[in-house]
Every structure is written in C-alpha cells, then in structure tokens.
C-alpha cells in the first residue's frame, strides 16, 4: 500500500498525529492514577504510526532506529527491575523515599498526586517506550512485506 490517500485524509492525519501521541503519553505517565499504563499508551502511540503509514505509504528507512529504541526500553526496564536486588527483584525502593516520584498518598479514596508511586511510573515509561517501538516495527515490517509481495505479483 505505497500510494498516498487523498488530500483531506493527509491533512487530517498531519493534524491528528500530535494529539494522538500526546494522548498516549498522557496515558503512560498517569498510569498510576487513571486507567492506562505502559501497554495501552504504547499501543495508542503505535496507532499514530499506523495513521502515518496509511496516509503516506511506507516510505523511508526507520527500521534500525525503531529496533534500537525497543532494545533500549527493554534493557532499561530490566535494569530498573534489578536495582532492588538487595531485597527482591522488582522491589519498589523509591516509594515514599522523598526522591523523584517519592511522594506518599493516604489510604482511601483520594485524587492522588503525580509525584508518587516509586518505580512504577518509571517502569510504565520504559514499557511504554518498548511497546510503542515494537508495535510500530511490526506494522512497518508488515507494510513493507505486503508492498514487496504486491510488486512481485504485478511483475510476474
């Protein structure tokens, strides 16, 4: 599918990409307060890539950068998990420590603060990075593969 769609669709895609990415980032970094988290925000960001592919066709070379982004996300996630190794793996050593994301909340129904949760928001960001890059890479490779099959069929 490497031809462009019409002018209206292209313009709407250009306008909608930034709000979609911002909405995904909102879902990721508010993952400990509102419904959402790394997986959901990553999927929403990947769908902005889907929108660009559908509007403009699969041109350009982005495979290496997306792949390295995914590896970076996974590596940082594992590193963050093993930082609490003195107690257990995945120990939340930052919670109510006063450092970054170290605020505390009370028991019961409360509106919450962004500055709480310890390592959970950081892990959300890492997993969001990994999932967004991975799903974008899947879409990208399948679009490329479908195009190359198409060309071969036309020629043969």
């Amino acid at each position: 599918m490497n031809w462009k769609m019409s002018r209206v669709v292209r313009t709407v895609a250009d306008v909608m990409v930034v709000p979609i990415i911002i909405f995904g980032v909102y879902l990721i970094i508010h993952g400990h307060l509102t419904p959402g988290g790394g997986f959901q925000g990553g999927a929403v960001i990947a769908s902005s890539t889907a929108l660009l592919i559908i509007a403009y066709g699969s041109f350009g070379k982005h495979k290496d950068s997306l792949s390295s982004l995914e590896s970076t996300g996974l590596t940082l996630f594992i590193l963050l998990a093993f930082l609490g190794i003195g107690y257990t793996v995945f120990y939340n050593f930052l919670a109510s420590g006063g450092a970054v994301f170290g605020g505390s909340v009370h028991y019961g129904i409360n509106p919450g603060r962004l500055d709480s949760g310890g390592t959970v928001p950081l892990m959300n960001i890492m997993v969001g990075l990994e999932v967004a890059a991975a799903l974008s890479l899947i879409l990208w490779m399948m679009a490329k593969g479908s195009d190359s099959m198409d060309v071969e069929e036309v020629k043969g």
Partner: protein
Amino acid sequence: MRRSVAALAFIIIFAFLILGMSQLRPFGEPENTEMDDYFLYDRDEGSQAHNQVNNVVTAILFDYRGLDTLGEATVLFSAVSGVVAVLRKVKRSQKEVHG
C-alpha cells in the same frame, strides 16, 4: 476419515465446554477473594501502603507480579525479532529473483 475424527472431537469438546460453563459458580459472586482483598484493602502491605499507587492493576503489573510483565516484554521482543527476520527474507529472495 480425518474430518470425521475432527468432527467427533469438536462435538465432545463443545459438550464439555457448555457443560462445564453451566456448572460454574453464579456470575458476580466469587468465593475465594483473599488475595485480591489483600492487594486492595490491606493497610500495611496493600497497593496504597506499600507502593503509594492508586491504580491497583498497575501496582500488580509492575510490582507484585513484575516477573510476568518481564516475561511478556520478552515475548513481545522475540515476536518482533521473528517478524523482522521473516519479512527481511522476503526482500532478499525477491532481489535474487529479479537481480
């Protein structure tokens, strides 16, 4: 022959599915909820006291059951590696055909 065996297996599995599903507990009234109540309401080790996190699902995903999430991320990584490997091979063989 194979189709008749498959039909028999399908009918048996279907009967067991419907039978088993109709013998489950009533919808909306679970019986053993100690673990979930521990995650939800415990004032010393629950999600709000231990992690300072309001969204209990996120707390379970990234703290209590964090190894599951690690395995999930690894599965996603290997699936992406598989897709990239398979579809890159398409392009290379196409070059061999046309070049």
